[in-house]
């Protein structure tokens, strides 16, 4: 590259005989070469006054007041600057994606070794750039085909063992992904399917890398690329990649660009993450959370085992209680108690009977006492008998007048003769 450059410079040097490029010198400093090229550009009259059409990209307005941006079409890019003095005369402020026509001169920025367009006038051609319009068209087309439908999105595995990564091996994105997985989910095996992720030929290379890693056999695929300009990410709007995503066996997660970028592959993916790191977080759980869940599982295991044992112990207690109720020792105890009760009832009954008998005996004795004839005689009564035959005189009929009778008192007796009698 350098040799060809040098060779061509030599030719032109001969053509224009520039004083700045001493003939006798064969090795030049970088500055000297850049000065030469600048002068060479300045000598080309076409480059002093050009109109260029293209799409604005990476438009920036730093505090200096100058404008910096890139003009591009599908295949090529051109750096552009508009100095503050020209900016002041500019009504139209271009935006990213605008299609414009720019006027100015092309010159060399020596310090950067770049050529760029120094603009003095910018004219808007359309409000949205061709790329945006094409993106919209493609999106609508694939959407109408049903490629983005939620129903066809596949679930991600909860614990992927093999994770396929489709990206460029040398990018920060791949490092970010590895860092996330190393921290969160180191039990996985990561299979990188390397591919260029920008520029000419990137899209078919990405399709091939997707298919390869899918065929190799993985549980989930992460298609990733770090942030970049719209044109850097443009290959992710290739419908071949979108279709390839829907044909893999493993579900595909995309992490392309920044949060604000949406590409066709995001629409087709089974899950879309805003960045490569976020993609890595989506495809795998965090081992710390799994460890917490395992600790909880251990508790639940112990709880349910403990519950089983406690329940069995309760059942055992119940059974023992019932057993005690029906056991012979308990029967015997009960019978013994009944016997004791009968015994004491018997004793009470006998006692009652005796008491009754005693009471009766007293009553009889009193009745007997009352009936004792001596007692009657003592109270003044007397017994009269006939002297002749000793028969008791119980009425006046038993003793006619003149009959001799004996009268027995408590103390002593009398012999008397009946004088008279009255019969009633």
């Amino acid at each position, binding site marked *: 590259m350098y040799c060809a450059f040098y060779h061509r410079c030599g030719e032109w040097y001969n053509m224009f005989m520039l004083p700045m490029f001493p003939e006798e010198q064969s090795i030049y400093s970088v500055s000297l070469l850049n000065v030469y090229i600048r002068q060479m550009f300045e000598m080309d009259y076409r480059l002093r006054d050009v109109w260029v059409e293209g799409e604005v990209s990476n438009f920036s307005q730093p505090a200096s007041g100058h404008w910096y941006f890139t003009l591009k079409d599908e295949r090529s890019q051109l750096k552009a600057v508009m100095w503050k003095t020209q900016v002041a005369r500019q009504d139209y402020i271009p935006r990213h994606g605008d299609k414009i026509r720019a006027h100015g001169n092309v010159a060399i920025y020596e310090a950067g070794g770049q050529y760029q367009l120094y603009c003095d006038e910018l004219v808007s051609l359309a409000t949205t750039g061709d790329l945006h319009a094409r993106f919209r068209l493609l999106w609508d087309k694939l959407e109408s085909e049903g490629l983005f439908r939620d129903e066809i999105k596949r679930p991600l595995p*909860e*614990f992927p*063992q093999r994770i396929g990564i489709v990206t460029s*091996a040398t990018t920060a994105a791949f490092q970010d992904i*590895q860092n996330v*997985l*190393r921290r969160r*989910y*180191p*039990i*996985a*095996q*990561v*299979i*990188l*399917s*390397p591919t260029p992720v920008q520029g000419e030929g990137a899209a078919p290379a990405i399709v*091939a*890398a997707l*298919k*390869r*890693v899918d*065929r*190799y056999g993985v549980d989930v695929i992460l298609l990733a690329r770090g942030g970049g300009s719209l044109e850097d990410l443009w290959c992710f709007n290739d419908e071949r990649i979108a279709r390839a995503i829907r044909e893999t066996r493993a579900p595909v997660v995309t992490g392309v660009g920044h949060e604000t970028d949406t590409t066709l592959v995001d629409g087709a993916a089974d899950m879309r993450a805003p960045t490569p790191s976020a993609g890595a977080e989506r495809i795998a759980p965090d*081992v710390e959370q*799994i*460890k917490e869940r*395992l600790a909880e*599982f*251990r508790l*639940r*295991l*112990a709880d*349910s*085992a403990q519950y*089983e*044992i406690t329940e*069995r112990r309760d059942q055992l207690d119940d059974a023992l209680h019932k057993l005690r109720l029906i056991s012979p020792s308990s029967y015997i105890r009960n019978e013994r108690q009944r016997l004791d009760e009968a015994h004491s009832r018997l004793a009470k009954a006998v006692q009652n009977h005796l008491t009754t008998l005693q009471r009766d005996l007293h009553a009889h004795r009193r009745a007997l006492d009352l009936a004792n004839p001596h007692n009657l005689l003592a109270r003044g009564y007397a017994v009269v008998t006939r002297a002749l035959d000793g028969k008791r005189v119980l009425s006046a009929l038993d003793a006619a007048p003149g009959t001799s009778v004996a009268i027995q008192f408590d103390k002593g007796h009398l012999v008397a003769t009946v004088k008279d009698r009255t019969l009633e």
Partner: protein
Amino acid sequence: MSESPTIRFEDAYRELESIIDRLEAGNLSLDESMSLFERGRELATICEQHLNAAELKVSQLLGEDDSDPRTELLE
């Protein structure tokens, strides 16, 4: 308990989940419960061994096309 984790992490985890479901549903004999409990503890240990021993393995597919499905370890 000294069993080295030959069971894949996911398989061990799933089995552990189903054991807990069965234990919590009840209707098991005491022997069944106790052997499930022991198995559950083993599986939890296996899962933890997996998590603790893990170091991310990163490899990349070699070659240009599908005819060469080999990988090489990175780093």
